[in-house]
């Protein structure tokens, strides 16, 4: 019988009942400061070395494109050999990198300081370095503004389509389908060839003329053809987010419409849209350089990276670096923007986390 008696024993460790010290309390309270979705994403992005290197490359190129023309002693359109009241000085033309023209050499022998032509000059005696920098500026600006145009039109059309639904949605989506299945590059070339002639007299005398009819027509083309991807994306986001369980859960818990939009819809939508815009920039830069290469890009004498590469084809055997330099810059920009965009997507698209 005795074996069957179960004994109940309680061992109490009195140490467990000693009040915690302040130090211990602090240890328990904040394991880690709470982070927002944005901070989380930034932290993830910072860990991605490839994306960070690409980001710095983009920042450096952008800063150079903005600030270098401000203090550089040469202008992109100045033909150095052509000075008012003097005969043309052909020794300025086709200088190799770091070479000086005869008049500059004379000035240097007289003790003056002459700013070097880092990349030499082109066939018309224009400083090639500043042309590359300015071309980069044009290409970046075109890429950036074209993406903004695509973003705005895409968001407007996509949200109308998503919210309205019904017949409006069907009609808009059919139009999107058709534009989507058009061979875009051929249509772009066709439009660019015609628009620039149509636009030139229209914008004559307005501030837009300074930008040039070709760039304006490029923007028009982006506004006409490239919004479809973005509007599909926005519509899809709106349709799928509306039906999400967490939206329903928030509403059940008594959340107001504004709270749902601010805390749930926008953070979930914005990252996808921003990423897609970021990836749109290199494709716009690509399109611009392609058109410039075909002679349908920026108006002369304004340079863009594509037109510089195209011009370089004429003196290719003697001056191959004139092609190689803009080629490297374009590839670097497109590559780093693509890699950075990929990094953004990995960091901010929660669905891809696992």
């Amino acid at each position: 019988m005795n074996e069957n008696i179960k004994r109940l024993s309680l061992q109490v460790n009195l140490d467990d009942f000693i009040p915690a010290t302040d130090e211990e309390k602090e240890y328990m309270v904040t394991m880690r400061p709470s982070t927002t979705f944005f901070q989380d994403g930034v932290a993830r992005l910072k860990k991605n070395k490839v994306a960070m290197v690409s980001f710095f490359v983009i920042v450096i190129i952008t800063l150079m494109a903005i600030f270098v023309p401000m203090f550089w002693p040469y202008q992109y359109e100045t033909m150095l050999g052509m000075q008012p009241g003097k005969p043309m000085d052909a020794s300025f033309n086709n200088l190799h990198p770091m070479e000086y023209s005869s008049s500059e050499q004379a000035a240097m022998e007289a003790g003056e300081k002459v700013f070097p032509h880092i990349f030499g000059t082109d066939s018309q005696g224009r400083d090639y370095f500043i042309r590359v920098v300015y071309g980069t500026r044009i290409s970046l600006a075109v890429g950036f503004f074209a993406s903004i145009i695509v973003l705005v039109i895409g968001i407007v059309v996509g949200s109308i389509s998503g919210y309205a639904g019904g017949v409006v949605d069907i009609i808009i989506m059919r139009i999107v389908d058709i534009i989507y299945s058009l061979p875009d590059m051929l249509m772009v070339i066709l439009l660019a060839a015609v628009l620039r002639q149509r636009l030139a007299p229209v914008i004559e005398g307005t501030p837009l003329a300074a930008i040039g009819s070709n760039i304006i027509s490029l923007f028009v083309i982006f506004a006409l053809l490239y919004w479809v991807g973005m509007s599909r994306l926005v519509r899809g986001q709106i349709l799928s987010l509306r039906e999400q369980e967490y939206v329903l859960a928030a509403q059940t818990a008594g959340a107001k419409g504004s709270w749902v939009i601010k805390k749930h819809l926008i953070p979930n939508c914005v990252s996808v849209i921003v990423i897609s815009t970021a990836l749109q920039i290199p494709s716009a830069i690509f399109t611009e350089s392609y058109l410039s290469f075909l002679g349908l890009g920026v108006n002369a004498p304004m340079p863009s990276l594509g037109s510089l590469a195209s011009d370089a084809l004429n003196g290719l055997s003697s001056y191959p670096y004139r092609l190689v330099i803009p080629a490297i810059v374009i590839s670097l920009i497109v590559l780093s923007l693509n890699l950075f965009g990929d990094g953004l997507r990995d960091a901010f698209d929660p669905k891809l986390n696992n």
Partner: protein
Amino acid sequence: MDPKTLRYILKRLVLGVFTVWVVITLTFFIMHAVPGGPFLSEKAVSPAAQAAMEAKYGLDKPLLVQYGTYLSDVVQFRFGPSLKQRGRMVIDIITDGMRVSAKLGIMAALLALALGVVLGSVAALRRNTILDRIIMIITTAFVSMPSFIMGSLLLVAFAIKIPLFPANGATAGGLVLPVITLMLYPMSYITRLTRSSMLDVLGQDYIRTAKAKGVTRWKIIFGHALKNALIPVITYFGPMLAYIVTGSLVVEQIFAVPGIGRAFVQSIINRDYMLIMGTTIVLASLIVIMNLVSDIMYKIVDPRINLE
């Protein structure tokens, strides 16, 4: 074939025909938006000569009548005479160009496909090794390089600095560099596509089952994995053709290949509007048809896929 697939194919066919019609219509109206109309040269012409020209090309008729005539002409492949190359018909210029361009494009596509699938499979099978890394770095670089840059750099390197190949695409061996230029981007794309879908397939249960049953490594790779891994590559056929067509516009220009792309670019520079319209319609229809074919093939090869 189940009725659902048939309905999908029918739907895509209708959309394809409709898209070609939209292309023709857009091309027609865009061209007629050219200041002064597509048939006038920049030179000043006497009013009588201009009226004669307009009567000859039917420009004195209302726009819609012109559009109807053009539509029925295009359906019969009648694109009219070239405005700048005297005595030549647009359709002849297009067929002549197509002979060269088709050769160039098909060679580039086949090479891209063969090399891309091999490189992609190798990268997937040797995952996370040095070889995989090198393949991925190189393909990433190629994907970011526009075709005109690639073509120009190859021209500098292998036709001028080291004269291995002729710079002129019309001569013997002249197509080597253009084919390489056109091939590199689709090859890189197919490599990346094959690698990721191969990795996906290799993780599937049926591969493990095959391994457990003692199937040899090569039989698994070729009989089980590659067959399924290549399905996504089919969807790339359409976009690849679109890339090769637009790429060949500049590549033929750089290497002076007498193909349809060069004819197109020249027609834009010369403002030969009849030729521009004809080439655009032919090339665009080609791209639309290839997209259609690759979508339908995708659906037939893998009936599980729901494309709606």
